[in-house]
């Protein structure tokens, strides 16, 4: 089975996390996460295994970190409440000193997670889809780049077909593929300086 060989080859990359996903419910076999610096290596591995390129695209995760922080704060608050309730219960029942002493700790943690600091910076996810002509094996390679500095190396040196896909991703998201031969607008007007698929784009 192709999946095993590719899993092993990709797993050898330093930053790669390879997960097998259920094709029937998700539509792909391998879900690979790498650091932006290693996308070229990943593409080379897949090229050597005989994969063809389906598409390169992006996803804008604006607001994700804030939502995560909120969720964490909510969880912490709920935990604190539960702990307080439990403490109150033990205090009522036993009147012991130990029970009353423990609750403040989780409360501090919740505050630190909730309001203490700015949420981490949001990122663009870049998704590469690969497929194989002979064996059924779809591989999705993902990487994340920060929104303020969306730079990553091009894989058009490995797959010339990625050239246009990366240009399109540059049009839509403003992703910068270093080493790309020509990042001028492909689908958008030739003087376009906007990136319509960014979530903060207002026409």
């Amino acid at each position, binding site marked *: 089975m192709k999946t095993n060989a590719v899993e092993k080859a990709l797993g050898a990359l330093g930053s790669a996390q390879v997960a097998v996903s259920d094709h029937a*419910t*998700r*539509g*792909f076999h391998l879900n690979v996460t790498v650091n932006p610096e290693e996308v070229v290596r990943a593409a080379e591995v897949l090229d050597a295994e*005989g*994969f*063809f*390129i*389906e*598409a390169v*695209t992006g*996803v*804008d995760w604006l607001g994700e970190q804030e939502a995560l922080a909120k969720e964490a704060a909510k969880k912490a608050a709920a935990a604190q409440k539960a702990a307080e309730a439990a403490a109150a219960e033990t205090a009522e029942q036993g009147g012991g000193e130990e029970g009353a002493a423990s609750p403040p700790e989780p409360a501090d943690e919740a505050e630190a997670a909730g309001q203490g600091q700015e949420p981490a910076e949001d990122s663009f996810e870049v*998704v590469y*889809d690969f*497929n194989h*002509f002979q064996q*059924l094996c*779809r591989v*999705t390679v993902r990487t994340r780049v920060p929104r303020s500095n969306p730079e990553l190396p091009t894989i058009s040196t490995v*797959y*010339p*077909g990625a*050239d*246009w896909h990366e240009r399109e991703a540059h049009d*839509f998201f403003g992703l910068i593929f270093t080493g790309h031969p020509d990042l001028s*607008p*492909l*689908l*958008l*007007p030739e003087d376009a300086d906007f990136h*319509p*698929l960014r979530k903060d784009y207002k026409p």
Partner: protein
Amino acid sequence: MSEWAADPSYETFVLNMGPQHPATHGALRVKLRMDGEYIVEAEPVLGYIHRMHEKMGENRTYLQFMPNTGRLDYLSALSYNHGYVSAVERAAGITVPERAEYLRVITVELNRISSHLLWVGAFVLDLGGFTPLLYAMDDREQILDLLERVTGSRLTYCYFRFGGLYNDVDDDFEAGARAIVKRMRDKLPMYHNLISKNIILRQRLEGVGPITGEMCRKYGATGPVARGSGIPYDVRRHEPYSVYPELDFDIPVYEQGDSMARYLVRMDEIEQSLRIIEQGLDKMPDGPVMAEKVPKIIKPPKGDYYFAVEAARGSFGVRLVSDGTNTPYRLKLRSPCFSNVSLFGEAARGMLLADAVAMFGSLDLVIPDIDR
């Protein structure tokens, strides 16, 4: 040509083909650097009818996006309907009744035949043969009439729904479909006599515009382009979906990789589609065409999903990222023509301009599908 390039008197000039040009069949421009009659460099310039369907997907509900899917590749709109509904059904975990799946396959294959027929007519017209277009249009008309009765539209279909179909077919559908199968079977030898055996056409296509299998892999070309280059890749067999595993059909493959091979693949595919339709009509069970308990508002669970179908021009894929609300968070449409045209620049290098037009036609490009 390199010894010419070293010569200081070597001159090239830029020739603009399109965006309004009869051979591009739509608003596509090709910037050519010519050395006399030979192409030194060809660069397709896209985007003249870019409509940003992917952004539209983020601004409307799952069902509201349905009509958009028929407006990408308007010649095989039902395949695109199929790809999109199947992606959403996979994400939302909806199962479709068997009768609906059979009807989907039958209508998609009818649509595939009508698409190939229009292509063959227009392709031969590009090369100077006018008559085949009239025959092809006549046969295609029968299919469009039948599909119009079923779906309500002639070109930009919006027939499938999440969990089934918009409505069941009427009593005359089966007879109509069988009549088309018979008509096309009778007509195909005529097409081969008129086109495939035509010596002028053969000389314009054989050995012209070779595309290797390796090139298809590097550029992600699929569909008849890949199958004309010896790659037996068809999503219907490779990654079976719908009721295709229950149907018996072949994947036509030609090794030559020239324009003639791509032409022959499509002609053979018409035959195979006829077989699929016939078997589908035989095997189609009675029953509902819509799943019970499909939620009115579709809210797939968080995550991303991929679904690919074999459209008339290659593998059409939908990557759907859901955030759990009633609109897609991100909807990537992987269109086959975009990848198929991306290899044109490399393939056309060193060709005669007239041959490049023949090769361009054999790629079967639909411009709204490239530009999305």
